[in-house]
């Protein structure tokens, strides 16, 4: 098979990620699409560790570590400084779901409302993995985490980050999956060539936090798409919704859930409830994508 993936590697070999980490694949693909004229702003997240301790860095582009709640705001400042120096370098805020869905949501909303010129990426592994698998507002309903133990698993739904960003009417929003690298790279290239706030949500399974064998990472990312749990889509200007992968023959959510220890405690009734939620969300999404 002849994949349309650029050969150049901007991310180096050997890193501190867990075996089978989805977030490292995400960065590798993203940098292939964006190229070396890119500056990364990094709040507290798994990548704080993955990039390597001082004075090492895994990526061959400038990288600035910032505080947890400060990804978008720091990136806004970097971009303003580049603009006043007449430079057109890509500025990427590379964040986890904690920084995006929770502690940094306010500053992301601020930067989105101003339409500041940046590519904001959330590599979503659905919990605070770097601090030890605590629930975030991205954690799906029913999941075990260290703060939602099996006696009381997560009660609320995963926050609908995509709709929140769409409501800001920013030029470009896309979801991407490490199981579909060509689609992902195409979206990052498209984002690169658009001005203003671009938001990319990349689904990144986490063997450590989701309790599955490391070799299943890509498979799980694919099953999440095929079971309609993680739709692949694009939104232009917050209003033009488009599925980039239609799911005509969906697989049951249990095919995805049963491979993960974090859902092991769920009974049939609960699994059915999750299937209903996923179906309902998909119907809502289809209405949005109708012409």
């Amino acid at each position: 098979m002849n994949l349309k993936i650029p050969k150049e590697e901007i991310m180096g070999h050997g890193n501190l990620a867990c075996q089978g980490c989805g977030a490292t694949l995400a960065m590798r693909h993203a940098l292939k699409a964006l190229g070396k004229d890119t500056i990364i702003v990094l709040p507290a997240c798994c990548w704080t560790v993955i990039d390597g301790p001082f004075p090492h860095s895994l990526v061959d582009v400038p990288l600035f570590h910032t505080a947890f709640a400060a990804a978008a705001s720091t990136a806004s400042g970097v971009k303003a400084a580049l603009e006043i120096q007449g430079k057109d370098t890509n500025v990427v805020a590379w964040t986890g779901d904690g920084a995006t869905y929770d502690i940094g949501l306010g500053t992301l909303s601020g930067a989105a409302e101003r339409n500041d010129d940046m590519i904001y990426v959330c590599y979503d592994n659905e919990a605070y993995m770097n601090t030890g698998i605590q629930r975030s507002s991205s954690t799906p309903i029913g999941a075990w985490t260290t703060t939602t133990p099996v006696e009381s698993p997560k009660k609320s739904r995963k926050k609908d980050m995509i709709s929140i960003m769409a409501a800001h009417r920013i030029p470009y929003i896309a979801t991407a999956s490490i199981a579909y690298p060509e689609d992902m790279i195409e979206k990052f290239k498209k984002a690169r060539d658009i001005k203003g706030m671009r938001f990319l949500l990349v689904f990144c399974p986490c063997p450590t936090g989701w309790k599955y064998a490391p070799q299943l990472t890509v498979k799980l990312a694919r099953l999440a798409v095929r079971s309609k749990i993680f739709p692949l889509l694009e939104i232009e200007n917050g209003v033009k919704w488009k599925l980039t992968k239609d799911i005509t023959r969906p697989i049951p959510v249990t095919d995805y859930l049963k491979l993960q220890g974090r859902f092991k405690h769920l009974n049939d009734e609960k699994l059915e409830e999750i299937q209903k939620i996923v179906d309902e969300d998909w119907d809502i999404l289809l209405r949005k994508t109708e012409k």
Partner: protein
Amino acid sequence: MKQVLMGNHALSYGAKVSRAQVISAYPITPQTEVVELLSKMCASGELKAKFIKVESEHSAMAALIGASATGVRTFTATSSQGLAHMHEMLHWAAGARTPIVMGNVNRAFAPPWSVWTEQNDSLSQRDTGWMQLYAQNNQEVLDSVIQAYKVAETFDLPAMVILAAFVLSHTSETVEIPKQEKVDEFLPPYEREYKLDTDQPHAFGGLADPDNYFELRYKIQKAMEKAAVKWEEVGEEFEEIFGRKYGLVETYKVSDAKNLIVSSATIASTARNAVDALRSKGIKVGLLRIRVFRPFPAKQIRAILNSVDKAIVIDRNIGFGASGIFYQEVKAAMYNEKNTPPIFGVVTGLGGRDVSSKDIIEIYQSVIREEEPKSDIIWKGLKE
């Protein structure tokens, strides 16, 4: 050119003549006029800067850290709650060695809500690694912004120029706005050696284990120590070009003084009148104004306090559970000195309660009768 300026506009003009390139700010009373005027200057093109109108003070500081790390000159202004909301990023600015200059209007913390002056907001940022300068009039506010950039950029340390709410922020005074070409002569463009630059990709701020972290903190302290010398040099250089002299401290009638009043900011400028009034009665009192609080001018303070009989430190702030904060610092600086005089600590004027020249005369006359301090706080101006 002389103009009548409120303290807030003196800050704006300071940023303008210093050619700030990225400004980021969030409004808070009583700082708003600083950013309103800067918005106008940026909109008209009078100041060629990018102004990011952020959604919080935390973001204002984060944006400037990003901009400064990319190699440009940055400015913001805030006050009180806003400064506290920035706290995490104040540490980040110092650790990232970004020479941001910020105006802070000293305003008391809530609750209960207050918009009036007190120094607890800036003093509670004492250990963030920011230089702190307390101005006594609007001319000094403007001049200090220019000087702050010079010192900050020499050592890559951030600096805060502090003025009293309303007493300076909203009080109009005659201020000389320095000519642009003279400021350019004094303050060259900012050049950052290691910055966010795709030609030289580096990672900044990554995890430093115990084998590396310690030295980085040592370097901040060493930079602070060197900055203490630099503030004096910059003050002299500033005088040569602009004719106004500044240092870490300012003394008034201390050469023959028996006793000393020590204070900062606008209480110190009011105390000058009190010293004149007391001297007219033949009382040999002098004034020491602490202008730069970080780096702390211990050397200058020792040189003066060693030769007086008694000193009274007047604080418009309080370290709860201890005493006035300037008082703690002055006492600590004098502790190992052989000729330490008795040092009295007065706390007054909290939440903007007025401290007049008459009040300071009363403070001096009542306190100086004592042989030595009986407590760490002498309360003045409290209602019965």
